[in-house]
């Protein structure tokens, strides 16, 4: 009995924290927009927001995969290397097969992502390698493979057919394709996480793996699945990345894994697993995108980008702890009184 009330209070605590966090980020975004637009009038234009959305779209796609992994108390540090590898292989394929339909190229990227994510999942579930170590290892393996397949060479714009380049650059009904892809991914995974059995099982595994196992949830299979899904998304993002920038390089997206973790953590995804929402991740990614865009507009040196990212990850996790301690105390008081 005691433990069940404890569980409910814990859950309401998490949702309260998430609530505070989402309004908090939203308020912060509004404040940031106000300040930056005072400094730079260009900031509040339609073109600039279009740019922010375009820059954030790939981040949103990969961060959603990262979020599902973090929900199960794991982490995927190999996303950026996987993205580069899938982008490189697909980029080289389209440069030698100009007739390849762009959608087939996209599917090919997803297929590569599934293989890479599946390998991560196998290491973690079958090999019992801790997620951080498994994906730190594949981070360098996938990056090294990107170099090996390309021989260190680039695939540049002239070597790609226009149809492929338009995949990420075209618009459909005035909406840029890239933004459309991100929106579709967000909607699909919002539905998946909230309204399907497997989606709910992901949360269950993260909030209490032992209880989930007792309840008959195939924990290992769920963990394997989230790595594969992360692979699907970074594989897809790799193709979009190459298409958007019209170049595939072996050092593409170096360090991008940090941004995906940052977007998730800023968006209120709990690093201890079990809680976090897709709208939160969208807000987290947007905030990160707006900050980076603002740094450029206010003419702060691009060298600040990395430091700001690190600072914001720390601020997000520290504020999480402070908020949840506050709320915990308030809840205890309320129950006592």
């Amino acid at each position, binding site marked *: 009995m005691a433990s069940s009330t404890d569980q409910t209070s814990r859950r309401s605590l998490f949702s309260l924290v998430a609530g505070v966090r989402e309004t908090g980020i939203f308020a912060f975004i509004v404040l940031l927009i106000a300040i930056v637009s005072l400094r730079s009038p260009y900031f509040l234009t339609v073109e600039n927001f279009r740019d922010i959305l375009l820059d954030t779209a790939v981040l949103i796609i990969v961060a959603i995969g990262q979020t599902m992994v973090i929900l199960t108390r794991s*982490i995927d540090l190999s996303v950026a290397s996987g993205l580069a590898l899938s982008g490189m292989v697909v980029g080289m394929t389209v440069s030698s097969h100009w007739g390849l339909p762009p959608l087939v190229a996209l599917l090919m990227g997803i297929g590569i992502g599934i293989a890479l994510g599946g390998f991560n999942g196998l*290491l973690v579930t079958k*090999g*019992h*390698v*801790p997620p*951080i*170590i*498994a994906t*730190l*290892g*594949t*981070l*360098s*393996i996938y*990056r*090294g*493979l990107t*170099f*090996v397949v390309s021989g*260190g060479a680039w695939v540049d714009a002239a070597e790609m057919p226009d149809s492929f380049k338009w995949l990420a650059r075209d618009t459909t009904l005035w909406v840029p394709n890239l933004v459309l892809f991100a929106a579709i991914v967000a909607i699909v995974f919002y539905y998946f996480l909230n309204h399907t059995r497997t989606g709910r099982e992901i949360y269950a595994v993260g909030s209490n793996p032992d209880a989930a196992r007792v309840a008959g949830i195939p924990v290992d299979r769920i963990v394997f699945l989230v790595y594969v899904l992360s692979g699907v998304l970074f594989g897809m993002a790799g193709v979009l990345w190459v298409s958007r920038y019209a170049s595939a390089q*072996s050092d593409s997206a170096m360090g991008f894994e*940090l941004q995906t*973790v*940052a977007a998730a*953590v800023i968006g209120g995804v709990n*690093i*201890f697993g079990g809680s976090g929402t897709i709208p939160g991740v969208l807000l987290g990614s947007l905030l990160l995108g707006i900050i980076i865009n603002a740094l450029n507009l206010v003419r702060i*040196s691009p*060298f*600040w*980008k*990395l*430091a*700001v*990212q*690190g*600072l914001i*990850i*720390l601020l997000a*996790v*520290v504020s999480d*702890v402070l908020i949840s301690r506050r709320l915990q105390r308030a809840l205890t008081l309320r129950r006592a009184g």
Partner: protein
Amino acid sequence: MIFKRGTSQRRLTLVATFLRWEWLLILLFAAAFIVNALLSPYFLDTRNLFDMTFIFMEKSIIALPMAFIIISGNIDLSVASTLAMSAVLMATRFQAGWNIWLAVLFGLAVGALGGLLNGMMVAKMRLPSLVVTLGTYALYRGIAFVVLGDRAVTGFPSQFLHLGQGYVGDTPVPVPLVIFAVLAILFVLLLHRSTFGRFVYAMGNNEEACRYSGVAVDRIKILLFTLSGLMSALAAIFLTARFNSTRPNIAAGFELEVITAVLLGGVSIFGGEGTMPGVVLALFLIGLVSRGMRLKNIAGEIQTIVIGSLLILAILLPQLLRRLTPRVRA
């Protein structure tokens, strides 16, 4: 009854000793040594053998506290970034006209401070070290970039360069090797012969139990991370002195190799297990392997594949070994 138990246990310890990870490492080390000797006729030269250690002493210095941190059940991903931050701040102070040794002290203080901040957040806020040091991994490297941009600092005085490139007197023994040896002995004593070391193991096995037994868990954590920051700063000095230059992207990816060496040395990623001699062996093994790859002109990117695979194998192999052990015992 008791006797019987004793003998069977002794037999078990014998088997365990035989299967000890360190022996496997020694075997691998011997194999790598022979391969290297076959690859190059100059390899077995005394001077060459000593010179070989230059390239991995910085990583080795960082690996010593990293072993402590992982045994205590934590991790520090920020070491290479801490190294870059203190190297850059030290170099810019020197450039601003400070005495080089004052700048060195400043660099050491910066590193210790960076580690202290990690430790405070891990211990006082009860945050997972993985996330904290992932944040400072970006923050500290970012600070290095903010301070120095895409420039580099060179032109250090020769007494300073001696630290990273010099030899002890007329012997072929490199200065960094000697300093590493002294530090390694200190760390071995600290881990295997002191109460502090016992507490570190105990924390890795059961932190809650330690807390309730009155072990100053928080203080030990803060101390460990500060030590890690300090050693990273020390490595920054050796690396800067060896290259006679520092730039913000210095030592990128070092954390991977350091953690790989520690885990390959038999330290359990789950904490509570591992020995210092194992870690030192693994450091020299990795040094030999990368030396051999360099000799064969294998590209750095492929070397990272090898290191990444080693990291994963370092976890997979002991599991396989453990699965085999009961059969041997039976």
